[in-house]
Each structure stands twice: as structure tokens, then as C-alpha cells.
């Protein structure tokens, strides 16, 4: 069976397992693991954790139905690595602030921005000519560090597995700048495709601020 078929089968199977959209893991810190493609094609991975700061729950009650929309603000520490073959490897530690809006069906969209520290490791040896101008020093895996600013847009859907766990496949587009790169800056773009998950053994978040707003149109 091809890899594509396995993924499709797995996603369909997950779909069958969905039976509730009630968030039973509100108190857990979800983790994310994603394929990280720098400029789409240079392969890598990204790990992150969503630390919820604020939740706004909006309930709209119509004559026919009740609609619940969640807006959540997260602080998301993350780490990513990618390999640009025959050029460099890169490792970034970052912190993003994400604003996520999700509906009662589990679909969400999210915008975010953040800062990071990017380390670029040269592929192969790096040589420096000594002051005597005749000899050279060889540094293996030489690197340089840069600060980055980033903005992102993501979308995905939460799939509840059991009462105690869920998976959220998502797609995220990042665009930002690597600062003080050469004599100015450089544009940095990437695409992520991954999954956010919270299982019963994920660490607990504890209490956080929740604001509930209700719009009842029936009263009119």
C-alpha cells in the first residue's frame, strides 16, 4: 500500500472516531509536531506547545440554534530545524503569540506573530585565513546567529479521539524576516503541515482567564 493511501486511510479512520466536539482537555497543554518546509522544499520539522493565556467564548442564540465560537490567545514556544542540502542547516528557538478562532464543528483559523533566534550552520567546513595570510583555520560546522520576526496564518480541524485525547491536523504558512542578515535583512518563508495533539498524559495548564459572552437574539 502506498504511503499516500495509508495517510488517506488513517485520516478517514480518524474521522470515524470523532464523536464529540466538547473540549474535555481544556486544562491540558497541547503539543504540535509538523513537517517544516523552508521555502516549502527544504525539509525539516517543528515542535511547539500551546500555552493558553486567554479564552473568549461567544455564544449566539438564534431562534433555530445556538452557535458557539471560541477565541483563544496562546503563547507558543517552538523549536524548528531544517536542512538545506549543500548549503546549511538551521535551528530556531522562538516564541509566538497566536490568536485562534474555532467554531463548534472543530474548524479553526489562526493568525500569529513572534520572535525567534535562528542559528545557521554552514554545511561542510568553514575556513578562515589567519592574520599571517598564509595559513587557514578550519572550523567544522561553523555557525552564525540571527534574530527573526515572524507572522503566520494557519487553519485546521480538531478531531476528538476519545474523551481524553484529540488530534488537530493543521496547515500553517509562515513569513518573516531574518534581521541583520548580511548588511540588512532577508525574507524567510515556510510551510508547515502537522498535527497538534493532547493526550491524557499531557501536562496540565492550570487556571487561566475565560471570558464568556452571550448574544441572545431570541429576546428581541
Amino acid at each position, binding site marked *: 500500500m502506498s504511503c499516500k493511501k495509508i495517510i488517506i486511510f488513517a485520516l478517514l479512520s480518524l474521522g470515524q472516531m470523532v464523536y464529540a466536539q466538547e473540549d474535555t482537555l481544556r486544562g491540558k497543554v497541547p503539543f504540535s509536531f509538523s513537517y517544516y518546509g523552508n521555502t516549502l522544499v*527544504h525539509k525539516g520539522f517543528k515542535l511547539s506547545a500551546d500555552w493558553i493565556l486567554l479564552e473568549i467564548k461567544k455564544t449566539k442564540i438564534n431562534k433555530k440554534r445556538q452557535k458557539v465560537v471560541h477565541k483563544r490567545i496562546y503563547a507558543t514556544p517552538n523549536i524548528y530545524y531544517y536542512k538545506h542540502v549543500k*548549503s546549511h542547516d538551521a535551528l530556531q528557538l522562538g516564541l509566538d503569540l497566536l490568536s485562534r478562532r474555532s467554531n463548534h464543528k472543530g474548524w479553526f483559523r489562526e493568525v500569529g506573530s513572534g520572535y525567534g533566534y535562528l542559528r545557521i550552520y554552514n554545511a561542510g567546513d568553514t575556513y578562515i585565513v589567519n592574520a599571517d595570510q598564509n595559513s*587557514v583555520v578550519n*572550523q567544522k560546522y561553523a555557525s552564525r546567529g540571527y534574530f527573526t520576526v515572524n507572522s503566520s496564518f494557519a487553519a485546521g480541524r480538531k478531531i476528538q479521539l476519545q474523551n481524553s485525547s484529540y488530534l488537530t491536523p493543521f496547515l500553517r504558512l509562515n513569513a518573516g524576516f531574518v534581521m541583520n542578515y548580511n*548588511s540588512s535583512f532577508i525574507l524567510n518563508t515556510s510551510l508547515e503541515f502537522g498535527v497538534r495533539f493532547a493526550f491524557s498524559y499531557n501536562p496540565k495548564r492550570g487556571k487561566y482567564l475565560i471570558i464568556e459572552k452571550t448574544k441572545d437574539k431570541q429576546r428581541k
Partner: protein
Amino acid sequence: MKKIVHVVLLVVCLASCKKADLTKVDEVFWVRNQGADMPVHIHGNLTNSIILLIVHGGPGGSGLDYRWGKYTVPLETKYAVAYWDQRGQGMSHGKYTEVDLTVDKMVSDLDAVVRVLNNKYDDAKIIVLGHSWGGTLTAKYMVSENVHSSVSAWIESNGAHDIPKLNRDAINMFKAVANNQIIQGNNISNWSEVLDWANSVDTNNISEDESFEINSKGFEAENWLTEDGLIKSSESGGNEVPYLTGPVNPLTSFISGGITNFKLSPEIEQLSLTDQLYKVTIPTLVLWGRYDFVVPQTLGYDTYNNISSTKKEIVIFEKSGHSPMSSEWEPFSDAIISFIDSL
């Protein structure tokens, strides 16, 4: 069982002791100099201990841009070819201010690359080939009186070593070729327009904007001459570098190169090295396309006539413009091979 383990270990040992194939070198290393990390890609045959160092054009190009095209196939068969990304271009990165983005710093970078190549490849002969802006940079290095002893020869291809002269000569060339093409009935409306524009430029006082215009109109004019068969179109094939998945990120290279070009332009526009070319004493090969409007062939003769080298050659490619390596790749690589073999 013990015997089998010994045999396996012996095979593994022999496999790991296998000598690298010097006829097909494919490696990358970096040179760090004054705040910049610059990649150098080496491809080809190192058995002769001859390295052809390509100094790319722009400013804003990249070393591996020059690996495209058929001319590198015969060159890499005979020699090792080093494709270097200059400071602030291609995949070079680093941290420095605008003050460190000067032609002198780039000359220092070129010198560092030469010294590293010499050190890394056990005193190999290095031949420096500069094209277009690379010709400017290599000319500046060659007149610096600090040329490393391992540099055996200089090849200047369509190099812009004197921008004020380039601008004047390009305007004169536009006029001459435009008149000729109008008489021959080729692209009359375009050439008439160019002729009017060229006649309106005061060659004693060419501004920076007009200089950029000369550059863009030069490429445009080459397209018309290609349509009319005076310039040969480039042939596909040869060494191809993957565009998106290869070592050069096109987006990074485009932005870095654009910024570097913008910041260097004011200095380059004033650069005139003709009166210093007499300092060049090493063997030199001058390669030019006859219909190069971007850097007219008069600059090729300028190099040829002013250098002090006792061994010097000039080759004009009759069916080429600014990039004879693309238009006439075979005579171009033949000229380089026969020159290097004669050293």
C-alpha cells in the same frame, strides 16, 4: 563465525579506505572573511591540480548560476571549477554594516577564497575567471599588487572594469548598431527608438539613472539581435543545478543580491581601472561577445592593450552578446582550455 566477522570487518575497512575520486569532485566549503560567510562549490576534475575560480556577475548573481549551460561540461571534465558566492549574494550570509559592503572588502574576500583554495588543495594552480561585474572585481584584484602567487592567470569575460568608459562606449555602440540595423531593415521601430534615445544622452555627463538605462536597454537590444539571428540563442543541456531544491534558494539570492546591488551601485558607477591595468603582469585571456551592449567590446581591447602581461590573448565571439558562454559555449570553453593548457 569468527572468520565471517573478520571478513566483514576487512571489507568495511577497505571500503572506508577507498580514495576519493578526484575526477568527479563535488563538494562545498565556506570561507569566512570580515563578517561574511561565503560558500564555494567545487565541481569537476582535480587530478591536474588546476582550479578555475568563477567570479560571478551582478552584483546580485550567484556562483552556481554559472554552472548552468554546456560550457561547464568540458571545463569540469578537465579542471576543477570553483563557484563562489560573493559577499551579500547567492547564499552568502553574515553580519556586517553597509561600511563593509565595498569593492575593497570584496577584493579582500576574493583574496581569502584564493588563499583557502591554495591551502586546501595543496598548492593547486588557480585561474581566476571574472564575468561582467566579476570582471570588475577581478580587475580590481589584479591591479591590487597583492595577487597571490598561486594565481596563474586571469580570464576577463565581458568585464566592466571602467564604468564611465563603458557608458560612453555603449552609447556610441547603440548609435552605430542601430543605424546599421535600420539600414538592414531589422526591427526598425525599436532601433529607431533606441537611436533617438542614444542621441539624447550627453556622453560627457552620464547620470546614474542613464547608466541603469544603458544596462537594461543593452539586454533588450541583445534580444532583438537574437531574434534576427545575429546573436546565437543559448542551448539547453549541460550541468543543471536544481532551481528550487538546489543549494541556492532563489528567493534568498534574489533579495540579498538586489540589496547588495543597490548598496554597491554608487561606488561601482565611479569605478575606473583602465589607468591601473598596466599593473597586471600575469598571463591574461580576454573573452568578449561582439554584440555586448552591456559591456562593449571596446573594454576588452582596453584590457588587452593596457595590461603588461607578456602572455595575453583576446578572443571576440562574433555571434555573442554579454554572455558568450551561453551563445557560443563550445568556442568559449575551447578558448579557455587552450589558454590554460598553454600556461
